């Protein structure tokens, strides 16, 4: 296979550290904003909202890797998918911690009650729970131990995570009667998942491991 120039660049050793650095930028920005009182009148709400939206953005980007590497003939992109996936998980954990700490004062009883009472919270927590095994098996040793096929099958959970994440976001925004932003996320996700379904001959094919 002929490697394009971009592919060659993508194989350079410094790309991965650079990617990690880029992944840290939104959170670092929030921390700087917090320290310098630039997060507006309600910094706690801003921190919860921004970590949540960045979780979605990183997840959508992770899901874009496969279509992009085919469409743009950039096979080297694949080596960064796992880093992006781990970034999704880190932002999801930060989002949950921000909620649990700033909204619920880290009172476990209140958090459990909230999850039980509110579908919107339940769906968000479910997405985080489903993400956890994916994050825990994101090391080479875990792939070897599970075997490629089983590892791949397990990581199909990411589709469920994406749909739950979108629903969580939709329910949150619907309260304000403003779902235009949610629609943008929904359309992009539809394209990303639709591309997979088309290539694999339907949704079932998409869920089957090769």
């Amino acid at each position, binding site marked *: 296979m002929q490697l394009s120039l971009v592919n060659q660049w993508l194989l350079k050793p410094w790309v991965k550290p650079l990617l990690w650095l880029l992944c840290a930028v939104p959170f670092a920005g929030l921390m700087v904003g917090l320290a310098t009182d630039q997060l507006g*009148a309600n*910094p706690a*709400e801003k921190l919860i909202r921004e970590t949540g939206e960045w979780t979605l953005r990183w997840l959508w980007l992770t899901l874009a890797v496969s279509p992009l590497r085919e469409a743009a003939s950039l096979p080297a992109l694949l080596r960064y998918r796992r880093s992006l996936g781990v970034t999704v998980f880190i932002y999801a954990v930060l989002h949950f911690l921000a909620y649990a700490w700033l909204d619920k004062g880290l009172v476990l009883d209140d958090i459990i009650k909230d999850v039980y*009472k509110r579908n*919107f919270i339940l769906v968000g927590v479910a997405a985080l729970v489903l993400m956890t095994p994916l994050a825990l098996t994101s090391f080479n040793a875990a792939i070897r131990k599970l075997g490629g096929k089983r590892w791949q099958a397990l990581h199909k959970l990411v589709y469920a995570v994406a749909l739950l994440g979108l629903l969580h976001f939709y329910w*949150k925004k619907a*309260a304000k009667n*403003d779902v*235009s932003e949610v629609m943008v996320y929904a359309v992009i996700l539809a394209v990303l998942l639709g591309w997979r379904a088309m290539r694999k001959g339907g949704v079932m094919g998409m869920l089957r491991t090769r």
Partner: protein
Amino acid sequence: MALIRTSRHFSHPDSGMTHGVSSEITPRAVYEGRRAWLKEAAALGGAAVGLQAASGLWLSGDAEAATAAAPLVARPGVLAALPGVRSTVVGAYAMDKVTPYEKVTRYNNFYEFGTDKEDPWQNAGTLKPRPWTLSIEGEVGKPLKLGLDDLLKLGAMEERIYRLRCVEGWSMVIPWVGYSLSTLIQRAAPTSRAKYVEFISLADEKQMPGVRSGVLDWPYVEGLRIDEAMHPLTMMAFGLYGEVLPNQNGAPLRLVVPWKYGFKSAKSIVKIRLVDKEPVSSWTKANAREYGFYSNVNPTVDHPRWSQATERRLGEGGFFAPRKTTLMFNGYEAQVGQLYAGMDLKKYY
């Protein structure tokens, strides 16, 4: 007005004898100093005030000849002055720490200018609060059309410090300037068929970019029962922090109903209608299950998607400050509880 305790479950913070924050009590030396300062200022005042009004702001000089009073909060010096005398209405002074001006004016829900909290602050510059006409019609003996200057002179401007609790779970404490809505409504001589009051906000695409979106069914409509509207705490506000209302806060005049969730307090009002049937407010129309007609602040009735038991007081106690307990009727139970005696507040949310 008698203070009637209608419920044993909620203690009231505004008995007048307790001060939530001891540092909020004005020391004698300070208020005596203020009085001396006022005497001097009275002589100079007119000229200075006229200058501010001339700087392209909506308040004309003559309306500002209103009574000077000891302001409870320092003017930020951003807009034209609108001084108010101290209010004698019971409950008009929340003892809470007042929310900083920057937070009051940069964190608003005013969907006519966008749905993000900072949108109104960024986009409301296109609103023209002058000239402005308010009409009062419907079940009234004397329908009225009042210009802003008439409205400003209609009653004595009072400064009142109210808590504001948003349905979303955050709260502020705001020093408003205005007078009781009853002052205005009485002028129109409501008939016996006037059971409710409907408030209609401006909806002008040219001035309000958000009106082009279909987020709500424009114009923004709110409503109160007539006894709620005539309650002395219900206020028609023309200013805050001793100055005219910033556009993003609902210039040139807005409703303030401190014991209800913030969205009940309609902004930039152009029409008040007295009616015999319960008006359908914009949020009820959009989602009746989540936003009822009454929308009284009530920590025991949750929003379907979040708890209303606590609130985040903006600008107080730092980033990690725990949320505050939300008070029944936002802490105005002693003043307004009797309006709802015998009502099932879970049903009439």
